[in-house]
């Protein structure tokens, strides 16, 4: 088991090396994209800073909470875009039959699909993420590790949700855009102060569009760790993870492949 995991880690590193090599075919382009991504993120942060400067707080949230949310959100999205973005292309792979290539190897098809695409520009999200953590004012070793852990859990949630959306392609052809739009809606909702979602909205954002597991619980856990919130977060993320895997497995049984000409 340990040897198998070690081999998988080695394969992961090798694939990442190849992805970086591909991105660095044009070095200056890659680096400019990272800088532009950081500037783009910071302009969004600036907009919220202006709002909080003028309003003081939004339902009890101040700029500090918002900065923590940006830290979690940006780090989670950077992890997704750099190491698992391939899952976003699953509908395309299903439609044109390229999924076949991943199904005939001895590795996990999900692992190979996920790592098949990487967007180098999203290193800019990590820069923003860590910068926002230091700007939040909640800086300590404990909060730092909690932020890293919550960012990872938020990444697992993003990944699971995107996998469920991508699996729609097993049912509906040409669903790439539909999946992209729902995924972007989830990211948009997860980037708002969690305090504005109360009552039925809160239920909605913890079930159908699970943005609350990125905004609401991580911020409260990093600020002031408590076990009930942490267990809810772990439980919610695990549930989405399991559902997404079951949906993918179900999809494979109904996969009909395709024969569109082209290359990976």
């Amino acid at each position, binding site marked *: 088991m340990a040897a198998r995991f070690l*081999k998988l880690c*080695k*394969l992961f590193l*090798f*694939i990442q090396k*190849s992805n970086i*090599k*591909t991105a660095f*075919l044009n070095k200056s382009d890659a680096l400019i994209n990272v800088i532009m991504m950081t500037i783009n993120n910071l302009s969004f942060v600036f907009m919220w800073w202006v709002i909080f400067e003028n309003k003081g707080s939004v339902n009890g949230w101040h700029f500090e909470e918002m900065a923590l949310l940006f830290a979690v959100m940006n780090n989670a999205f950077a992890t997704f875009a750099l190491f698992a973005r391939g899952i976003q292309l699953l509908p395309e792979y299903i439609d*044109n*039959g*390229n*999924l*076949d*290539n991943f*199904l*005939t*190897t*001895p*590795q*996990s*098809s999900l692992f*190979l699909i996920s790592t098949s695409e990487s967007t180098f520009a999203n290193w800019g999200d990590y820069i923003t993420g860590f910068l926002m953590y230091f700007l939040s004012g909640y800086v300590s070793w404990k909060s730092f590790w909690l932020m890293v852990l919550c960012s990872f859990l938020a990444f697992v949630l993003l990944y699971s949700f995107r996998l469920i959306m991508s699996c729609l392609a097993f049912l509906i052809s040409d669903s790439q855009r539909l999946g992209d739009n729902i995924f972007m809606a989830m990211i948009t909702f997860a980037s708002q102060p969690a305090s504005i979602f109360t009552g039925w909205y809160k239920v909605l954002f913890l079930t159908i569009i699970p943005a609350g597991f990125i905004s609401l619980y991580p911020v409260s856990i990093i600020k002031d760790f408590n076990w009930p919130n942490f267990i809810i977060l772990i439980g919610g993320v695990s549930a989405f993870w399991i559902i997404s895997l079951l949906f993918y497995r179900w999809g*494979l*049984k109904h*996969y*009909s*492949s395709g*024969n*569109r*000409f*082209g*290359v*990976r």
Partner: protein
Amino acid sequence: MTDIIEVSQLTKKFKIQKPSSGLKSFFKPEYKNVTAVDKISFAIKKGERVAFIGPNGAGKSTTIKMLSSILYPTSGTALVNGLVPWDNRKKLAYDIGTVFGQRSQLWYNLPVQDSFALMGKIYDLDEIPFKRRLSKLVKLFEIRDLLEHPTRSLSLGQRMRCEIVASLLHKPQILFLDEPTIGLDVTAKEIIRDLIKKQALEEDTTLLLTSHDTDDMEKVCERVIIINKGKLIFNDSISALRDSYLNKKYIEITTEGGKKIRTVVNTKEKPTKQAIDELVKKYHVTDMTIENPPMEEIIKEIYSRE
């Protein structure tokens, strides 16, 4: 010799949405069942080179995809090297190699050698045996000059040679080739056929090759399975097929005045060479093409004799 592939009553049906307009179809879409593969049974022995041919939409690719663990069947059973493909996907992957002529398993932007290295890691190949194996295949398929080129810059024929090498890196016992010569020119087709056959003979690899080009099966394989509309209609040696159905040649000549003359020669009655000599003697020939009967005609003939 033991059977390395055993297929029994294998069936695959696809549910396809009926095209219709209006809101009703949006909320309550109608579907129809299409039978792509219909209760086919056959067996292939270790080291055999079998052509799986039929016209477009006959069910060739669907069958290969079930045998290579990509698709789940609707019913029936199959054993590939003793394993049920769709239940043993990862285990079976070490025993089989797949080449799909219509798509690539190489990374588009990476140099070919990097794609090979990545395939080596995916198949858990140790460094030294991998290098030795790659070196052998590079020599056999004559691709040394292509190794540093990114896949996107290769011609279709060059890419196909690299695709086959990629599928052979882990030394599979069975190689599934789905239309490996599709879209290639005559010369490239010849090269690919020769290389596939040479490799299979050298390593005793079992081949299952789909094509709708009868030349592919004649040049590479020893046995042929023909399917049409999902049903198996012929399963015998190439020589049996040649004697019964491939005994015609279509010769088309262009005369000096630009006139085209097409003639059919029964090779059982008259050798092709003799027919050509007669035509050359009779006309001033400026161009000539010789073709096998098209797949559709062979199938029509098989049905008519039933």
